[in-house]
């Protein structure tokens, strides 16, 4: 039996969530006395791939071309490798790619698939994982009953652990192409912090009073190196683009620090942010439900507080 971790570089590099996934795979392989295999799918330099050895990736296969196009083809690729290396546990990130490929892969391998798993399995016999249900209102223990198991890991629920090994990197060839999906155009911004991967998020709600007031929020985000986000009414009103909507029907985020500015804290919004490590809320209403979800709160008028806050963090950053 072996453990297979699937990761993709972004813009030729690996981010913290890739290192977390390797660390996670290493720990599970160690606990189950299995060999860890890593499949890297996407363009990256040899040096970047070799860095995965810091986290325990000893055996790496690298497909040095951009793949993610057709989920059926990508899942064929992973299924093929999983069979060759006799993978018993397949680990993928719970991002756009993992979520797209894992369910198809599960059917191909008749494997039980546990998505958005939190941290390490609580037991290996039977294989039992922790995962949220009811959009964070419940925490469940789930047993994966099949011999081959697939999990996608919720980011920031395990952490990055160094286990320095000397990796063996071999080129991976996969030539199947899609006959079913045709790409018409791609519009991707490079160098952008993805909301779902951001360490700090500054998010605005209806309390921001209008799209013209977003500049101070963006200033704060810039000072903190944060991504910007918003609540559902804000995106529904068209003040901000839909891809910034955080909440039950929007994006579920897990930053270390989340600023909820002028967000009242409806249960649907909390469902999107309840995995944040620390939440700071600013609201003029001291009774707003956001304060019961927040760790730190400031009561008052955002138009006064927000520029002041930006100044404080600017000074603080330059002082460290």
């Amino acid at each position, binding site marked *: 039996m072996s453990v297979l971790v699937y990761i993709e570089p972004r813009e030729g590099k690996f981010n913290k969530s890739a290192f977390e996934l390797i660390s996670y795979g290493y720990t599970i392989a160690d606990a189950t006395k299995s060999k860890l295999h890593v499949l890297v799918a996407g363009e990256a330099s040899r040096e970047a791939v070799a860095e995965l050895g810091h986290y325990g990736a000893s055996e790496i296969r690298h497909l040095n071309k951009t793949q993610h196009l057709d989920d059926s083809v990508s*899942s064929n690729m992973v299924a093929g490798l999983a069979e060759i290396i006799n993978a018993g546990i397949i680990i993928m990130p719970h991002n756009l790619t993992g979520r797209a490929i894992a369910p198809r892969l599960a059917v191909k391998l008749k494997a039980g698939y546990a998505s958005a798993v939190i941290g390490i399995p609580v037991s290996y016999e039977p294989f039992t994982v922790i995962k949220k249900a009811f959009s964070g209102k419940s925490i469940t223990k789930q047993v994966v009953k099949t011999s081959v198991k697939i999990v996608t890991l919720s980011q920031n629920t395990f952490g990055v652990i160094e286990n320095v090994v000397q990796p063996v990197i071999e080129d991976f060839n996969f030539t199947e192409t899609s006959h079913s999906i045709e790409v018409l155009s791609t519009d991707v911004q490079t160098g952008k912090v993805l909301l779902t991967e951001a360490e700090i998020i500054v998010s605005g709600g209806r309390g921001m009073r209008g799209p013209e007031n977003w500049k101070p929020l963006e200033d704060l985000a810039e000072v903190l190196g944060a991504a910007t986000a918003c609540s559902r009414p804000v995106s*529904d009103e068209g003040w901000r683009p839909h891809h910034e909507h955080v909440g039950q029907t929007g994006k579920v985020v897990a930053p270390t620090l989340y600023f909820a500015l002028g967000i009242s804290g409806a249960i649907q919004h909390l469902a999107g942010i309840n995995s944040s490590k620390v939440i700071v809320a600013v609201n003029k209403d001291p009774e707003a439900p956001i304060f019961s979800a927040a760790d730190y709160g400031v009561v008052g008028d955002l138009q006064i507080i927000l520029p002041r806050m930006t100044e404080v963090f600017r000074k603080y950053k330059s002082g460290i």
Partner: protein
Amino acid sequence: MNIIVCISNVPDTTTRIKYKPGNKDVDYTGVQWIINPWDELALTRAIELKEAGTVKKITVITVAKADAEPTIRKALASGADEAIRVDASPVDAWNTALNLAEALKNEQFDLVICGVESSDYNNWSVGGMLAEMLRIPSVSAVTSLQIENSKPIITREVDGGRQQVSIKLPGLLIVQKGIAIVPRIPSMRGIMSARTKPLKVVTGVSGESLIEIVDYEAPPQKSSCKIIDSENLEMLAELLHTEARVI
């Protein structure tokens, strides 16, 4: 073009979740049931396309026992033409997908649309599993759908942006917010006509599960919120650094 929209009957998203003694099952007493929010957006887009004349027929399908029929009628009242209820209590995502796949083998369709996840078990699974079981192509994280000359023009989210693609039919789309923004609310006329629209009940397949939930618990309570004086925001920066250790 004929579209199938898969819908799931879920507790209203504001429901307080309670458990039966032993914490192995959810206590659904008194729960209000709704169409899963993402499925509702999928249905809304299908209805818009039908109104625009590019879609001929919309069929909704769900795997559930008879008590889900009010939710199915609501989908019909919103604008679906007919409904299929696969008579089974799904035991996990795999089993749900298998029930859908078996029922859809007998149907004529060009596109199947599924919401990206359901608000109850948040498994992100059924759409992709169903596509694989039906052996048809799928596109996930779909945020818009147009039909031009019987060809689907699809926008999907990719890391850092979006991509426009087309797919060979029959195909399956896994959709998220953006496919529609405000869910369609049934009109009085829709509610009246829903009563006479066809609702077919088909027999489900066995209850094999690959995943089993063995325990539920409430998430840990947050400790109380520390209120910081708006005149002393330096304190906030200080606490985030020394106490929370996040900056």
